[in-house]
């Protein structure tokens, strides 16, 4: 847990430093008050300082109820999450080209068949059902302008 806190503090310190540097590109003060660079600069300073204190704090005494158990799951579960994200990224990548409804079919079928181990017929069935549901509710009833893709569906 402490390792995770340290990493988060370090990321925040970096982010704070980056905010301070980037804020220099904008005017700090105008005639009557703060300029566009004012808030980012001070946010950078505050974030950097809090992160520094938090980082130093991770080296002090162990807290009550604190365990050394890793927060992240094993590689198997992480791989599963990675695959879900990959399938979602694929959805975002292909939805304009293939059309929303077809992408939903592929998304659901792949998730169920590859990740969840559902048999192919059942996966295809749920793929079709989800696509039909999305079509009826969101395209037909709510008239949302979802991408139609090459096939026009």
């Amino acid at each position: 847990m402490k390792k995770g806190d340290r990493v988060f503090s370090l990321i925040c310190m970096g982010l704070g430093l980056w905010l301070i540097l980037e804020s220099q590109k904008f005017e700090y003060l105008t005639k009557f008050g703060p300029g566009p660079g004012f808030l980012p600069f001070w946010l950078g300073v505050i974030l950097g300082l809090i992160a520094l204190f938090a980082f130093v704090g991770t080296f002090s005494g162990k807290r009550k109820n604190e365990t050394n158990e890793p927060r992240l799951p094993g590689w198997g579960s992480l791989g599963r999450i990675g695959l879900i994200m990959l399938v979602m990224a694929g959805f975002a990548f292909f939805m304009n080209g293939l059309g929303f409804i077809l992408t939903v079919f592929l998304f659901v079928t792949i998730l169920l068949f590859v990740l969840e181990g559902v048999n192919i017929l059942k996966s295809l069935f749920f793929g079709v059902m989800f696509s039909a549901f999305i079509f009826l509710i969101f395209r037909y009833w709510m008239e949302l302008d979802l991408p139609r893709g090459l096939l026009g569906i």
Partner: protein
Amino acid sequence: MDSFHSLMQGFSTVITPFNMGMAAMGCFFGTLVGILPGLGPSATIAMLLPLTFGMDATPAMIMMCAIYYGAMYGGSTTSILVNVPGESASVVTTFDGYQMARQGRGGVALGISAIGSFFAGIIGTIALIMVCVPLSKFTLKFGPAEYFSLIVMGMLCIVFVGGKSISKSLMSGVIGMALGTVGIDVIQGAPRFVYDVPELMDGVSFIVVVMGLFGIGEVLVSAEERMKIKTINVKLRDLWPTVADVWQCKWAILRGSVIGFFVGALPGAGATIASFLAYGIEKGVAKNPERFGKGAIEGVASPESANNAASSGAFVPLLALGIPGSGATAVMLGALMLYGLKPGPMLFHTNPDFVWAVIASMFIGNVILIFMNLPMIPFFAMGLRIPYRYLYPAILLICIIGAYSLSNSVYDVWVMLIFGVFGYFMKKYDIPGGPMVVALVLGPMLEYNLYRALALSHGNLATFVTRPISGTLLAIAAVMVVVMTLKAGRMKKVLVEEKDE
């Protein structure tokens, strides 16, 4: 009398088939997300928000509010039947609710939680009117300096009360505020942190951030291990508590309602803290406190009343001050702005029809919920039997549709996915997302009021402390900082001593 007349006007606005339908739909979705672990009201409201863009603000807000308090009703179901809280606000209900279910009194626990929630919802809404109307008149005196100080105080409150670790909450809040600086700045109209990405000109959409952090992030946490839920079956005829049961809980419900409302009205405190506090107090005043944790019916009635009253209380800062006190109200505040309304005390004067219709809908929503919950809980509970592997693709798809519909652009989907990954790691490392979302909404408001206050005072910083209301708010904020610092120091000392021992 004025308020009563306005409320009646509000009822006349709500009692149309469409508005009633939206209230019922909100109650249904709210109960459903409350029951299903892994998806909260903030993400649900954000997901459904883009789908309401075609309609008026009133029915849309009626639905969003109903989702919020409906989730509080539904949250108890999983706590009682599965020992897994559907909502963080229902964690404490597992203590006695699940024990009651194991003793064969699960139906009674569900029934008393619905009855308690109903009374708390009604009491909370009456209190909302009693507090909100005078408060909104008082806050009409607020200028930019007062708003700046109020936002500072509200932010500190959210940070100090909200998360487990103050430093993590602070960092989360500051990152949210930094995200709020992206886009065209409010002072000179200069693009900040845009890096030639045209979509960033409009800033980072808080709706996309909420869907990512609380929607995708939660799904990833739940999907990481194949979730299996075993429920305790309840029959419809077992759902009605006896008159003696209800009578036994009368003070628990009342105490829970009062505590819940006031805690809920504090920015950052919210329904979770309200339910824990109400449970603690109930145990403290009980003649036989040893019954608690072993299936005491008051141990269910009190926290369930508190979390429902807290959801009414959460509307006080939103409606009277125009600042959100939680993630869900932050989404609603943003929604109001998207509908072209200006949240804050002026709302009571510029859009009284809207405000009173929303308040009136809370009374009607609570009535719908008690009728929906008591007879239909076994049916809702059946939803828990749907395997998670079929449920999470549906949640992910609704998130994608919600993000895409914001501006019919895949860009928002990508941003949501990125925040989904952040949300997963934040959840895993106990970094609260609430302060980030609230700060993302409040950041631009803070900057705008800071600039206006300084412009009006010709750059005089003393304006923040010399104006009485602003000075008082900043003094409260300063006291909060000192108290929390001392408390943190004392805790550290105790921990070091513990380590030395």
